[in-house]
């Protein structure tokens, strides 16, 4: 039996397993979109057949970072912007784990932007959920990387002179192999997209629109929304990079004009994950490295085997 008996366990999974035995009261405000992410994730997990003990949820800092407090699994509430490097190393160390990273738009597209670009580029087999509420919530309403141009806040009293980040376009250019946008107000689509993202063998990025009823009152509640897959206005091939780029650009622009466009924007099922690439060049072991440390019968090489180079 594996030293990690939770991994690959074949059994019925109840969505209640992803709720703590005694549930703490969430720090999120009433009406917060973050509840929608929690709910969608709890619904998705049983569908993908993974249990709490084989799931590692790594979060950043901010309201979104509290997701790991209310979702029952192995959790790592890391530091601002650094959930991705922590998460991707855990996946390399033990590819048997289901690794999910989550954070806000400031966390992922601002302070952690460099890690976002490089983790996408490496195409790790993991899911990255970005709670995009176009605002810094926990620090009380400052302008964020996705706030619209002209956004006024205490730190931008004359209105932001910056164009917002285009999260999906950035993701595509960086190398993500699954890119979708969903919204907390659209629970069924959110669940389905999370299922696809988790099952996708590569870096799956979900830009999750989460309304902030406290600090972003002016913003839409992301209704009504349109699913681009169901819209007659949008007819594009999600596997075609150029068509996907155009569709993303449209969706990102129109968000600031009051039109909420959600759905799958890019899917590349052909590109091997980073782990597969590294195993192909023998730069990563076939068996999970983490197992080696807990197995009784592991053999370990010695530096003494290298000394002939030094004689």
């Amino acid at each position, binding site marked *: 039996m594996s*030293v*990690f*008996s*939770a*991994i690959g*366990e074949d059994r019925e999974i109840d969505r209640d397993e992803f709720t*703590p*035995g*005694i*549930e*703490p009261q969430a720090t999120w405000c009433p009406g917060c979109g973050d509840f929608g992410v929690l709910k969608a994730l709890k619904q998705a997990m049983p569908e993908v057949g993974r249990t*709490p*003990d*084989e799931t*590692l949820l*790594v979060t950043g*800092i901010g309201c979104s970072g509290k997701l*790991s*407090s209310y979702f*029952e699994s*192995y*959790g*790592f*509430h*890391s*530091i601002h912007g*650094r959930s991705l*490097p*922590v*998460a991707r*190393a*855990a996946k*390399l*160390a*033990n590819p048997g*784990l289901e690794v999910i990273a989550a954070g806000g738009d400031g966390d992922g597209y601002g302070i952690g932007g*460099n*890690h976002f*670009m*490089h983790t996408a580029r490496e195409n790790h087999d993991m899911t990255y959920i970005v709670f995009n509420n176009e605002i810094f919530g926990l620090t009380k309403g400052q302008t964020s990387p996705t706030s619209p141009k002209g956004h006024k806040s205490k730190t931008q009293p004359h209105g932001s002179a910056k164009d917002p980040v285009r999260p999906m376009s950035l993701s595509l250019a960086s190398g993500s192999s699954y890119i979708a946008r969903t919204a907390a107000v659209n629970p069924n689509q959110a669940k389905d997209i999370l299922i696809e993202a988790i099952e996708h063998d590569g870096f799956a990025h979900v830009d999750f629109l989460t309304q902030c009823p406290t600090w972003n009152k002016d913003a839409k509640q992301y209704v009504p929304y349109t699913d681009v897959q169901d819209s007659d206005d949008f007819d594009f091939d999600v596997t075609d990079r150029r068509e996907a780029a155009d569709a993303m650009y449209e969706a990102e622009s129109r968000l600031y004009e009051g039109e909420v466009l959600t759905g799958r924007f890019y899917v590349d099922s052909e590109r091997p994950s980073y782990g597969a690439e*590294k195993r192909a060049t*023998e*730069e*990563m*072991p076939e068996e999970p*490295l*983490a197992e*080696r*440390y*807990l197995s009784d019968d*592991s053999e*370990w*090489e*010695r*530096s*003494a085997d*290298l*000394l002939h180079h*030094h*004689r």
Partner: protein
Amino acid sequence: MWRIAGGSGDGIDSTSQNFAKALMRAGLDVFTHRHYPSRIRGGHTYVEVRADADPVRSRGDGFNFLLALGDSFARNPQEGADTVYGNEEIKPLSENLDDLNEGGVIVYDEGLLDEETIERSDLDLQARAEANDWHVYPLDLRGLAREHGREVMRNTAGVGATAALLDMDLDHIEDLMEDAMTGDVLEANLEILERAYDSVREDYDITHDLRVPTGDHDEQQVLMSGSNAVAYGAIDEGCRFISGYPMTPWTDVFTILSQHLPKFGGIAEQVEDEIAAASLAVGASHAGVKAMSGSSGGGFALMSEPLGLAEMTETPVVLIEAMRAGPSTGMPTKPEQADLEHILYTSQGDSCRVVFAPANVRECYQQTRAAFRLAYEYQLPAIVIIDQKLSGEMRNVDESFFDREPNADPGSVLTEDEIREAAHHESGKFKRYQHDAENGASPRSIPGQKDGRFLASGNEHTPEGHISESPTNRVAQMDRRMRKLTSIREELDEADRSHQTHYGPEDAEYGLLVWGSQQDTVFEAVDQLADAGESVKALGVSDLMPYPVQEVADFLESVDSCLVVEMNASAQFRGLTQKELGRFGPKLNSLLKYNGEPFEPYEVVEGFERIVSRDAAIPEGTKFVPAAGD
């Protein structure tokens, strides 16, 4: 002591390494010292190789054989530039003369540095040679190399000439060439080596007395750098994950492990920046793997926050800090010991980490292993400090020293059976951070283990990991985490585990206190002082956190006065010692050096004279700071 000088890209490094190895194979103890600029081609570069039948433990004082290859990339781009910036071509010769000992030998490549160039310069070579009894042998190394091979083989010609002038057998050098090269390249090099050897023998009257000594080793030797030893210590302690970003001089350790770990079933990751590098090591360790990262000053600064995360989440991790001269970009290829306070205290909140500064190749290996063992047993970051000096210096070590059992034990980790029996919170989470853990470390579970779920958080947290700002929980968790340092100090104080090194007679009147890479130079100074009749001993400190309070206090108690020797401008180690011990201020004088060059033994000797006699002069390039109240 042989110094080979040229420009970067002239093969100085590989030539000197083979030369050192040949001397080691001939039965001598060797030590190398590397000096190079931060550039790819050209610039003033040299490597010193010191060899003796008796143990050598430092670069020594000055040197006595200069092989000035000339910088083949040198050019003064504009007429008149040499009067402002100096003549670039002549630097391999001119820059090295100040340290050349009396009676020394100079070989220079007259193929690059013709007589006219030398005369035109303000070098005054002939007069200085006469004054210092130097023996000068101009040789057309470039011509020889061109004739029998290619110009880049000038260094081989230089080695052949050296061997001839020092009466050294070519056998070991030829063997090493045969190991490293094949075909036409090998043939040409062997030809050049022998031609150079023969032509010196035939064409020159050898006027100097300097000869390679003869020696004998009892057992097989290996030539090893500090970086090698750190990397090998990590391998033997089960490290199979490294993440990093290139930065001099840390790159050496990073490169060695990146080459070996994949072959040993491990993983090496070069990532976007040092924040990521340290965070990856934390993530891999959290998932159950023995992991390390590291950098030099600037890159290590970026690791501050993940370092604190490791302290708070109690994730074991080993970091290497290979210091170079700061602040900021500083002098990238020059050694300094000015990152001590940065390493001890960087990251917000109270520090809870292990910090070791090994002094030499053996200690690099042993203390890297100890760092891993303690990091994983006590679940905290352990940092090994090296510097540009230690990183690149090569020494011979008994091969049997490395003949040790590996230890890949992941430390305080529970099995699934143990987790099942362990305490769980009502939420279902395993209590991974229990207040009452005796030595401070509460055993952990690894993601994927059944029923071991917990939340690791950079926020203060309850035993199962939930975020909490309760004052009683806060104090209990802080006290427990800080208790680890007390436990580790107790463990290290057991006699056989002390990392401190004592040198010299126990009842000596004066003391020398030193940390990290300058230790063995200071020990050599103790020998010189003893020969001169002084009553002096030294203590080399490696444990910087937790600090060996009792051991250092006993040492300082036993001496009348002490000189603290370190390579920085603000006496950081002296400050640490005073903070930790809270007394001895009036006994602690400082000898500081921060000009980019490590100490030479004579400088320590002269600095020592100052604590004995206030009138003694302080050697150029160093600074003396008297004890408090003096």
